[in-house]
């Protein structure tokens, strides 16, 4: 039996003016378990709190009810009061007689009656309270960053600089991501390589950062503070420790038919190759599907020319198991496939290119050494038409419903760069809206129009057709209300961007939620934008939604600071009000597991003793470090095995009974 004290607060006149506090005290004296009841002017003041502490000692209270303002206001205060007096802080209940009683009712009789009922409900609940202790767990002081683009690199650098170990897992042979492919960056027109490659070098040489390139996350288990991750290191067929990065192997490789991923297929590469000159690590990789040796058993020229003896045809995929306290997803994006947007003739005409391909065509390190030429005949283009919103804002199913956000700005950048380098080239941009919210963004776009003479036309393209070696672009001009046909040498499509296709499986492994477009969902869209709802999983870059480089870097830093905050803790204190399953009642049906938004429930086969009978059963097990205490599982459970501490079935039923009495 509990020994309960009831303390009714006047809150000055806030409560006492409408509720007869003395009557409340009298009315609850006889409630089951109540051994003392008192009122006081300000319960939350030091005087009020010390009165509670005194009563705890004097009456040997096992718990108490405070009738006062909302628990959202002072529940924490009174829990501390309890703790100070040696009581478990969860042996406190609040009856909200201010916000939900005295402030809304004018009639003293009604308000007093309601206050008594609310107090009885709190007493009834408290009678069933049990001391709760929030679980603690250790934090492994190492973070994993999935993805080695600018988002992943920045996050890793920030975490590493704070003194924590970080691993980067990158699926391609080098870090750098999409940013490494870009020529210039808006709105300042810095060279992308000039600002990115030093960061890549920093990441590679940082004592706290370990790179797993040409590697994939294979399996994730565990929870916040203590994840176990299996990383699959794919066979490079080149020994990283021996290779000097001289590049002779790639030069000599006789197979030159593979499409260069880095150059967007505008150039071919060898079967053994280094993706680009500044690749990190600067170690080649053998594309086994393209390699003559792997296909026929012959050739082996690369091994012969390698002075260091680094080529190793026998290398195999390896699984590395590592532990982490936090995981950052930075899986990035890719442009969508344009096969459902046939009107642009992308697949048919070589001179219709995507913006990312255009970046490579402008890039001094690209396939044309930075000379802008038509891919079909290597001639200088006289007219270029840029088309925006290709597959973005599309609800017809051919593209994506969302705005890809970055296209307006990079198109203005491309248009401006072309006009600057080749003033004889006419540039048209066909747009629906030009969206430039960002520092110096609109000024940038206006400069393209006003200083560089780029023709912006509001209207969309109906079709592109090849005619006499040129491209005819039929489009509407909505301002002039005409339909026009532009003769162009090149058409550049601002293709919508979508999350990297690996994101979905990574999301599943992490039990991190995603939206219908496969972008990761944030824990709160405004207040927790870099955290996933899954504790210990953080989001960086485009994997969460389209964003440009400055925004990505800012978000990467924010995610890093959240990770640092987590790793700096010695122990993680969990939520005390967690779900728990009674193993003899559990049927093992998985209903709770299916509704848990956090993946906190797993099923184990365990020996259960039920009425003296011992048998192996499949039972639910709640990981208290992950459970957030929503209670979804408790209602899904058909047998009532699952219950929520602090809000148990019996506690809530007791409140119902007390109110309806």
């Amino acid at each position: 039996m509990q020994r309960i004290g009831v303390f009714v607060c006047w809150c000055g006149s806030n409560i006492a003016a409408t509720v007869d506090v003395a009557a409340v005290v009298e009315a609850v004296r006889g409630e089951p378990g109540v051994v003392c009841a008192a009122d006081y002017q300000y319960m939350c003041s030091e005087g009020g709190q010390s009165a509670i502490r005194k009563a705890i000692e004097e009456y040997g209270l096992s718990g108490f009810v405070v009738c006062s303002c909302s628990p959202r206001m002072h529940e924490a205060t009174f829990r501390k009061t309890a703790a100070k007096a040696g009581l478990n802080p969860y042996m406190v209940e609040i009856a909200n007689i201010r916000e939900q009683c005295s402030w809304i009712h004018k009639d003293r009789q009604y308000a007093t009656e309601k206050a008594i009922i609310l107090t009885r409900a709190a007493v009834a609940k408290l009678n069933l309270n049990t001391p709760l202790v929030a679980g603690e767990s250790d934090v492994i002081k190492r973070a994993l960053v999935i993805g080695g683009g600018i988002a992943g690199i920045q996050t890793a650098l920030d975490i590493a600089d704070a003194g924590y170990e970080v691993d980067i897992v990158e699926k391609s042979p080098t870090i750098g991501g999409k940013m490494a492919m870009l020529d210039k960056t808006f709105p300042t027109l810095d060279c992308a390589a000039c600002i990115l490659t030093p960061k890549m070098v920093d990441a590679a040489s940082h004592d706290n950062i370990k790179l797993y390139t040409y590697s994939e996350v294979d399996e994730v288990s565990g929870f916040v503070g203590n994840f176990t991750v299996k990383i699959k290191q794919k066979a490079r067929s080149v020994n990283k420790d021996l290779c000097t990065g001289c590049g002779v192997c790639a030069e000599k490789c006789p197979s030159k038919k593979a499409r260069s991923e880095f150059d967007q297929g505008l150039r071919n590469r060898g079967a053994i190759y280094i993706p680009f000159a500044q690749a990190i690590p600067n170690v080649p990789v053998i594309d086994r599907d393209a390699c003559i040796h792997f296909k026929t058993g012959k050739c082996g020229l690369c091994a012969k020319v390698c002075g260091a003896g680094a080529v190793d045809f026998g290398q195999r995929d390896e699984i590395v198991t590592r532990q982490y306290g936090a995981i950052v997803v930075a899986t990035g994006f890719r442009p969508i496939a344009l096969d459902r947007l046939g009107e642009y003739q992308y697949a048919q005409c070589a001179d219709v290119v995507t913006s990312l391909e255009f970046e490579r065509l402008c890039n001094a390190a690209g396939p044309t050494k930075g000379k802008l030429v038509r891919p079909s005949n290597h001639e200088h283009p006289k007219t270029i038409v840029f088309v925006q919103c290709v597959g973005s804002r599309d609800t017809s199913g051919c593209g994506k419903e969302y705005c890809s956000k970055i296209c307006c700005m990079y198109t203005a950048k491309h248009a401006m760069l072309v006009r600057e380098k080749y003033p004889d080239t006419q540039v048209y941009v066909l747009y629906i809206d030009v969206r430039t919210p960002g520092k110096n963004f609109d000024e940038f776009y206006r400069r393209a129009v006003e200083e560089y003479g780029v023709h912006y036309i509001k209207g969309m393209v109906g079709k592109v057709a090849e005619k006499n070696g040129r491209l005819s672009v039929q489009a509407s001009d909505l301002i002039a209300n005409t339909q026009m046909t532009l003769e162009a040498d090149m058409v550049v499509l601002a293709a919508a961007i979508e999350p990297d296709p690996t994101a979905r499986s990574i999301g599943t492994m992490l039990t991190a939620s995603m939206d219908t477009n496969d972008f990761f969902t944030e824990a709160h869209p405004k207040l927790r934008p870099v955290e996933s709802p899954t504790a210990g999983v953080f989001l960086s870059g485009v994997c969460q939604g389209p964003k440009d480089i400055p925004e990505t870097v800012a978000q990467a830093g924010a995610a890093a600071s959240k990770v640092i905050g987590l790793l700096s803790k010695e122990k993680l204190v969990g939520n005390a009000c967690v779900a728990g399953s009674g193993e003899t009642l559990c049927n093992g049906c998985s209903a709770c597991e299916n509704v848990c938004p956090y993946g906190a429930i797993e099923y184990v086969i365990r020996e259960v003793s039920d009425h003296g009978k011992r048998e192996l059963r499949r039972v639910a097990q709640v990981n208290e470090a992950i459970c957030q205490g929503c209670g979804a599982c408790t209602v899904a459970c058909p047998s009532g095995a699952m219950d929520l501490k602090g809000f148990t079935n019996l506690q809530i039923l007791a409140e119902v009974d007390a109110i309806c009495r």
Partner: protein
Amino acid sequence: MQVSEREMAKSILRISGVDTKKCMKCGKCSGACPAFGSMDIHPHQFVSMVEEGNIGALLESKSLWNCLSCFACVERCPRNVEPARLIEAVRLTVIRRQGANHLKPEEIPGLLDADLPQQAIASAFRKYSK
């Protein structure tokens, strides 16, 4: 009985099943339209004029008869607005006011010639029959 333009707009939306509010005014329909040059009011204008209830001008428009019903605009629209259905609904409104059918199935065999695409016949039926 005089029907207000507002009511007519409503009935056109109902006949066509088109939600004009989905339009984001990109003009792709007009960019794709092969009959654009022979139209006085263009596909994208149809959408916004119906949305605004500006039906009188549409009823008089020769675009109703120059639309090929090729559905290029429907095919290309990124928002599934389907302007051709709207044009069709306006055309129907006009035809219903005029009364009789202007093309009967019996007349078809006489009109057939080898170069006439099937689609043109279907289109003619759409335009000249109730």
